[in-house]
């Protein structure tokens, strides 16, 4: 199987969709000649031309708004928001327009818009360029939210997002772009709403998203050395959520750690914990542990940034707490 970086996998999915379908085009800040600030769209301008690889002004509201309009007019646009921190500027369009038109038109309109964005700490981008805001959007009915963690997943899920008739927000993570992984020769679409068991185990289930999937795998390996068998599950899609897969795992292990890089308070993990305590209450043998960023803005100073953001040690400590060590 060929190996792609996460960045290349995103590009591969975009190119494949654009080759397959003239309705697919991409828009965003500096995505054409520059190839995007993270280099994801490099080379696409050469293949698909300026009509379909469009630079935009620096206005997130305009980017998303134009995407919504094109989507309602029958296109399958993929817009890029350079940093998810700036997604805040387009929230009116996402929350009040993209999420609502299909419902408010009684199904006469649909919004097959894909919004790609990225963020995350770990490289000292500072308080305004390092946040993880995915939970904000999971809260809005009418949107789908995905957060793939591997090249294979991002390629297959981005494809499904493009061909979904509803607005889908695809969260990517800055630190994942160089991560390499094997992918199938041919692009295999991965349905939105299906979790993936990354690692099987029997004592504790760690439900992790984005970079925490990888940090949890580190923690799981170390826990294994201590005799604790850890199952790691990546929901991949935060909305819709594969509750059945999570509940099934918890019924097997009876202990849960939920881990994400976003701030712990009101994070995605809070929702997962609530779902599991309700659906698997009688199977829980320990309080559900949450691992997330401390409730603080992210500093430029690497040491301070690392103090706030959860790493493998934090996941391991939570795993140990669930088994009473």
């Amino acid at each position, binding site marked *: 199987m060929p190996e792609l970086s996460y960045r290349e996998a995103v590009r591969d999915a975009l190119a494949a969709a654009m080759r397959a379908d003239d309705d697919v085009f991409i828009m965003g800040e500096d995505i054409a000649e520059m190839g995007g600030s993270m280099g994801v769209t490099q080379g696409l301008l050469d293949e698909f031309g300026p009509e379909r690889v469009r630079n935009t002004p620096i206005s997130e509201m305009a980017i998303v708004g134009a995407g919504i309009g094109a989507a309602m007019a029958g296109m399958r646009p993929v817009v890029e928001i350079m940093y998810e921190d700036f997604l805040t500027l387009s929230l009116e369009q996402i929350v009040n327009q993209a999420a609502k038109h299909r419902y408010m038109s009684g199904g006469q309109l649909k919004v097959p818009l894909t919004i790609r964005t990225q963020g995350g700490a770990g490289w000292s981008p500072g308080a305004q360029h390092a946040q993880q805001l995915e939970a904000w959007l999971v809260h809005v009915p009418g949107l789908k939210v995905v957060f793939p963690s591997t090249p294979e997943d991002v390629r297959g899920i981005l494809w499904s997002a493009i061909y979904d008739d509803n607005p889908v927000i695809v969260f990517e993570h800055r630190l994942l772009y160089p991560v390499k992984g094997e992918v199938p020769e041919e692009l295999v679409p991965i349905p939105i709403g299906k979790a993936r068991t990354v690692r099987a185990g029997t*004592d504790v289930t760690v439900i992790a998203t984005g970079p925490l999937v990888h940090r949890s795998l580190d923690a799981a390996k170390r826990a294994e050395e*201590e*005799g*604790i068998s850890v199952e790691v599950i990546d929901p991949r899609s935060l909305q819709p959520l594969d509750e059945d897969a999570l509940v099934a795992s918890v019924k097997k292990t*009876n202990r849960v750690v939920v881990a994400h890089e976003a701030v712990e308070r009101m994070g995605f993990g809070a929702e997962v914990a609530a779902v599991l305590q309700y659906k698997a*209450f*009688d*199977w*829980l*043998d*320990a309080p559900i542990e949450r691992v997330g960023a401390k409730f603080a803005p992210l500093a430029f100073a690497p040491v301070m940034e690392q103090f706030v953001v959860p790493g493998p040690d934090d996941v391991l400590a939570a795993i140990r*707490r669930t*088994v*009473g*060590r």
Partner: protein
Amino acid sequence: MADEVKLPRLGQGMEAGTITRWLKSEGETVEKGEPLFEVDTDKVTQEVEAEVGGTLLKIALAEGEAPVGQTVAWIGEPGEEIKEEAAPPPAAANPETPEPSSPPANLVREVTPPPSTNGGRIKASPLARRIARERGIDLAALRGTGPEGRIIAEDVEKAQAAPAPRAPVPVGEVESIPLTSIRKTIARRLTAAWQAPVFQLTLSADMTRANELVARSRELNPDVRVTVTDVLAKICAQALMRHRDVNVQYTEDALLRFPTANVGIAVAAPQGLVVPVVRGVERLSLAEVATARDEVVGRARDNKLATQDLEDGTFTISNLGMFGVEQFVAVLNPPQAAILAVGATVDTPVVRGGAVVVKPMMTLTLTVDHRAVDGAEGADFLRTVKQFLEDPALAL
């Protein structure tokens, strides 16, 4: 109140640990995270760190084994009050374990409830609660070994293994079946029989020729269905004639020795166990035995026995071989002195002339009333039965 230091679970499945050494002594200041003592588990020796900072007020277990979750020390402010549980006895495996030193005078000794209770509320995980509910286990009786003394599923599972009170298995309404008079008779007679001092003798007989005899009899006279029981009845009757001291009834004053072998056949009739008697079996041909047995057993099954059908028996045969039972002990049928329990005929490897061969073997167990018959007499009779079974011609 001072914080309890409990023996932690250092690995899945760890139930107890042995404290080998304290790295701090009483009165010393301890930082959170500082190594406090060393524990030997069945796998490793490990340092245990303090979970809280403060003064090590008291060491409850200086050395020796303790179950996971047991309080081994207290950390708190100097002079702080310690709530001590009734100290569990040191593990039997370590008789040399020194007793915990007697507590300083300022310690208040009082018995506290198990650590999992907290103001009446039992601290237990939802899973532990569910398992306890399903199995009818009282959580209040358990000691939690989870974080903060919480009762976890493993604790309940272990309680299950112990002889704990269990919820009654739900059953349907109990049916009351009044005793029939025959059931009462069976009960009275068997209870009386149980009083008799009996002994049992067991041997096996090679049934090759007896089986041939049954087959040949059926072949010659298809109208009468001869069975193994008939052969046994006939052979026992012949043997009883040679061992008349076994062909007796025991009474308070005398042994009644009978001139004929009146052989009872234990029958599982619909109304209960009955033992109709075939009289004078020694004088009957095999076919006559079969006919008489068939007739009387048939009446037993139809509940049409007369009193005299059940009287004057001198010996009883109880055959459960048709159920596959290989060997059993029959209860005496007083006033008769002996009863033969007959098992199934089973192809069995036996040694003949130094070689192992397979033979159809039947195990016979004779129950004998020792008040009437002594061991040697009984054994001699049983040996004759075996000889006759193995070579029926000898019974002539």
